[in-house]
């Protein structure tokens, strides 16, 4: 058996505790982000996921500076960001993107400051890399209870609000017509997204966390329109890319050029990206079959973010 598996799994894979934690945490985070991600993509809030990634950097850097656990930093930073976005959110779309961008800029600037202060105080340079690009292998077992708690909270929010959230994501008008408090539901979703983004950040880093928040969900939505199937597919894709990424990263320890291993986040993001591209194939094939003349019928659209 081991002869068969050894080309795929480098030696020591199944024995390493770091790997066990990585696989378990990775799977859990994949499920959480996949579920939240489906609603996020349906609501067209990919930019928000981006914002949490960047502002999470500020939270994480702050945590380093203050000496608190990084995950706490991500959680607090993201919740503050969520609050800011709710306040800004009343404006029309174009103004909202601008305001979000400004807040991002200020937040990232602050992150730069925190990282600088931390680095000069402690004369170690790894903080930037760890926060921004993360590593699922570096998660200590002490963080696991918090991870479990956060995951439970996110799943509780999303699954409890499943029906009103689904309806208001599809059509806010129809939802309010039925007496659903659309803004409140949206606010709860934003909190869930903030926490999910924090979880994604400790596994693959803040500025890459969007990949987990948006990628598997977007792929799932291209493959199926039924909500429950989309949720399951998104979680499934997430787990698959996480585990495969972990295996590859472990195996890469002896790869050139530096024989230190390639970053696991790189593998996860690449796999997410490839999956997204592949998920576009069935639809492209369908479109070719109906022989629609897209060039004729669609006016070129200026690419304004929604």
């Amino acid at each position: 058996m081991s002869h068969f598996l050894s080309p795929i799994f480098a030696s020591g894979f199944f024995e390493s505790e770091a790997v066990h934690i990585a696989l378990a945490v990775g799977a859990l985070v994949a499920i959480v982000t996949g579920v939240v991600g489906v609603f996020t993509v349906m609501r067209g809030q990919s930019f928000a996921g981006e914002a949490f990634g960047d502002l999470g950097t500020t939270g994480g850097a702050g945590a380093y500076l203050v000496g608190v656990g990084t995950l706490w930093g991500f959680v607090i930073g993201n919740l503050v960001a969520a609050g800011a976005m709710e306040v800004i959110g009343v404006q029309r779309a174009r103004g909202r993107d601008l305001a979000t961008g400004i807040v991002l800029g200020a937040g990232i600037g602050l992150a730069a400051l925190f990282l600088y202060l931390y680095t000069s105080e402690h004369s170690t340079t790894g903080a930037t890399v760890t926060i921004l690009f993360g590593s699922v292998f570096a998660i200590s077992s002490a963080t696991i209870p918090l991870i479990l708690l956060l995951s439970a909270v996110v799943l509780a929010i999303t699954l409890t609000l499943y029906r009103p959230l689904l309806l208001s994501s599809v059509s806010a008008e129809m939802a309010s017509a039925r007496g659903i408090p659309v803004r409140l539901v949206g606010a709860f979703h934003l909190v869930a997204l903030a926490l999910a983004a924090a979880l994604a950040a400790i596994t693959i880093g803040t500025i890459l966390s969007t990949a987990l928040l948006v990628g598997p969900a977007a792929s799932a939505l291209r493959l199926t329109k039924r909500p429950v199937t989309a949720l399951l597919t998104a979680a499934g894709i997430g787990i698959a890319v996480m585990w495969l990424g972990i295996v590859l990263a472990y195996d890469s320890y002896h790869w050139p050029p530096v024989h230190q291993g390639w970053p696991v986040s790189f593998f996860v993001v690449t796999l997410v990206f490839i999956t997204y591209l592949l998920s576009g194939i069935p639809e492209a094939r369908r479109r070719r079959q109906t022989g629609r003349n897209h060039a004729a019928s669609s006016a070129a659209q200026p690419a304004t973010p929604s």
Partner: protein
Amino acid sequence: MVNAWTVASMVAVVAGVVGFFTVLRGSAFAAHAIPNGSFAGAAGASLIGVSTLFGLGVFSLGGALTIGLLGRRGRHDVATALALVMMLALGALFLSFSVEYAPEVYSLLFGEVLGISPNDLAPTAILGTLCILAVAVLYRPLMLSSVLPEVGEARGISSFRMEMLFLAVLALATTMTVPVVGTLLIFSLMIGAPAAARSFTDRPLLAMGLSVAVALLIVWIAIAASYETNYPVGFFVGTASAVSYTIGRLWTAVRSRRRAQPSHT
């Protein structure tokens, strides 16, 4: 030190001009995405020993084209987000191969104005001039296409072509501004200054000029402050941009309240 001021001023002028259209077109996301994509280019360039500007340029342009082409079909925001993250991951990979991993990451992301060498002056000036020339040449059709795309189409101005050209200019601007302000913060300068400027004037060209002026102010303050405190330039740029934007919004609110007074019909 003179280097830093000169280059930073050039950066501010370009950011002000290109940023004017960025804000007009609501392209804050693209302005955020393209520099992050170029991060990989800079990282890769340093890995293989090529000029950073070259790496930045190639990846900025590539990122811009991808965003433009992907934006035609499918969910625009998802495609852009994933493409951008892919580029960042690639950059992380390249940097992991180098010895100077962490410090390089920091300066690429947050800027390193004091590390600008005299050799960078000429290419930066050339790229900057190209940017401004491009905007001047495209001014009229770009204005119409940005404000009223349908009317532009009716006049034979293809919205798609304008978008691609604009993204290319954005990529060019990114290439020369990133070494100073960093990939994560250049967009802040590019949207903060113009957003503030347009609160103070109704006229397009004046708004563009004011945008440049505000950008220069922000950059000069940032450099002076950074020189004094040793804190990173990016921190001051991000903060000053946010302050400018807020002042602009407050002024707009004051103006509209004044306008709503009884004397107006």
